[in-house]
């Protein structure tokens, strides 16, 4: 049971890395908290749902379309909203409110357009049955989602550390002011990062019908709470740290389910607070504590 929870937790945690990845990139680059992240993910789920049921596209072939589509949606949305927000007195705090409003709009529109009943994509699309790893059996969907998540992390790493735009992005993450002073077009860099953030949320959404059983327009807020725990534990503002957060979250959750199931939802919050109190900057972070 212990080995199963550990191995399952690692695989499951990879998917939660994917859930937190985009949120963390957006926070790292723009210092804003996208409270509508879970709702963007929900839209990704519904996009995958309709592409499967109306266009008979399997989620794996729908995923690239959704990634590109969400990225392209992110660019105009950034220019419409974020520069105005950045001009306010307390942008970090005000972003909570702004994106709460955005979340309300998305959820309301989704409820009107999609209705309230639970939906999903049949499990057989990704293959039914267990995958055997080191004598443990794991759901096939978990393994596939984990592989996609790792590919996304790798792609983000290559972007950040091996492209010119990635270098500029890291410069903005290190200091927005210095980046601006050294002539970087921070809005272009940020808009692309914002687009990538939404694209990653959409990608995570593609696998939600398999990982979470079913999808509804209301699923966003639960996802957000998990995503917060993942990125804070993994280091807020450090996208690659999200991997660590995801793994801690996944292993912790499955261990709790194994040994103390009724308290399982307490764990992400407990981890989050403990990590913040012991290392306010997250497990991998630089010191950012102010007081």
């Amino acid at each position, binding site marked *: 049971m212990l080995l199963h929870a550990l191995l399952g937790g690692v695989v499951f945690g990879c998917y939660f890395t994917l859930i937190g990845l985009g949120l963390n990139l957006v926070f790292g680059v723009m210092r804003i908290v996208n409270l509508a992240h879970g709702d963007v993910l929900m839209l990704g789920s519904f996009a995958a749902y309709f592409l499967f049921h109306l266009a008979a596209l399997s989620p794996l072939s729908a995923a690239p379309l959704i990634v590109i589509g969400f990225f392209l949606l992110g660019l105009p949305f950034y220019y419409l909203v974020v520069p105005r927000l950045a001009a306010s007195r307390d942008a970090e705090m005000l972003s909570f409110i702004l994106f709460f409003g955005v979340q309300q709009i998305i959820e309301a529109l989704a409820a009107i357009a999609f209705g309230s*009943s*639970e939906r999903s994509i049949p*499990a057989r699309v990704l293959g039914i049955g267990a995958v055997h790893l080191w004598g443990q059996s794991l759901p096939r969907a978990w393994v596939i989602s984990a592989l996609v998540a790792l590919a996304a992390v790798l792609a983000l790493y290559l972007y950040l550390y091996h492209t010119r735009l990635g270098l500029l992005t890291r410069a903005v993450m290190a200091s927005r002011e210095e980046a601006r002073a050294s002539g970087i077009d921070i809005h272009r860099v940020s808009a692309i990062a914002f687009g990538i953030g939404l694209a990653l949320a959409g990608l995570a959404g593609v696998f939600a019908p398999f990982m979470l059983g079913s999808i*509804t327009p209301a699923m966003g807020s639960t996802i957000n709470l998990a995503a917060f725990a993942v990125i804070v534990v993994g280091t807020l503002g450090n996208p690659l740290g999200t991997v660590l957060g995801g793994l801690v979250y996944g292993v912790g959750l499955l261990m709790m389910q194994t040994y103390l199931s*009724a308290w399982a939802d307490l764990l992400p919050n407990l981890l989050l607070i403990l990590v913040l109190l012991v290392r306010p900057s997250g497990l991998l972070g630089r010191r950012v504590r102010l007081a």
Partner: protein
Amino acid sequence: MNQGRRRGFLNALLMLLITLAIASPIAAGAEGAAPAEIKIGHLHAASGPYASISMPVYDTLKLWVDQQNAAGGAFVKAFNKKIPLKLISYDDQSNPGTAAILINQLITQDKVDLLVCDSGSVLTAVAVPIAREHKMFLFDPTGTGAAFFSKDNPYIALLADPVSTVWPRYLWEFLKSDAAALGLKRVAILYATNDFTGTQASAIRAALKEAGSPSEIVFDQGVPTSTSNYSVLIDNIAATNPDIVLELGYVGNDIAFLRNLQDQDHKFKAVFTLYPGIETNVLMKNVGAQGLAGVFTYVTALGLTLKPEIGMTVEELRAAFEKAYGGGGVEFGWNAIAGHVTGLVIGETLAHADSLSQADLRQAVFGLSGKLKTLVGTFELREDGAQIGELTPIGQFGPDGKLAVVYPHEFATAKPKINAP
């Protein structure tokens, strides 16, 4: 400075007054002989966690009102004529605080004649004391929380769900008789920790622990209602080697559990879950006939062929629902039926009440107890307003996706089968 301060406050005051002026309705018409319309106040949740159980109720209640109005209105005994109905339904967004305000709005501002609360116990709860305070009789479609019903509160009746302490009766009887005879003695209980499923789990637990019970509980754990993966839990249950696994959760829980079950090597001899018989469409679409084959569940009106003395049959209602709302993302299921039953009870109440006073409405509702036979069976109220009439037999899905009743024997259409281990 002084002027600015005063102006700030006056502005605020002005805005409040405007707000209130808009919020209050146009003054109600004078008390006359027969009203031009009968106002039914209702709440629904168009979004948020309770939307999936609330919207079907709203849809069929609306459908029923439209049908009545198409026929010239509902017959109202108090005025001995047909009067059109007006359904005023606000969206509480699954937010209990907003639900409380809107219920009060229906009572105090819209001055509705009949009051129907939102489904789902969390949203029903806030309406109970408000209705009582205003001496309004509360038509409660599906809020089953045991705490709502007490002998000193005459202002509530549960219409379309059996109260949660009574509901699982056939399940424990089945476990202790037929299931045990089939060798399904080791029972695992996995439940979501909310009022609805938690209460059912306690009732079942208590019954199985009674002296002389042949069943033995080998696993008994709660999980948060937000749980969406059951893989590890299924593994842990399998380690206790149970004969039958009871998974009690909301729709989302049951879907996740049944889907995870397909991904596992473990095959339990028997599995019971709540919702396959309650929201059959949703479960069938999300889990598939293959995933439901062999699963035990409660059989609601959806799986029974009861002949109603009033209102539509299940199939007629299903057809009407699909015609009106098909493809809108709200599935037909038990909650849709509950909305129809709510309409029928309201209609019969109006047809029997001597006046529209809340006391007479209550008397009329309780007068229907044991007499009204709808598509869900006999409407029967306990003294405290809890519903005890409807039947929830135990059924099992066949490999073709058909649900057959296996217990109690007087309704049984098939014998329970167990999977090869």
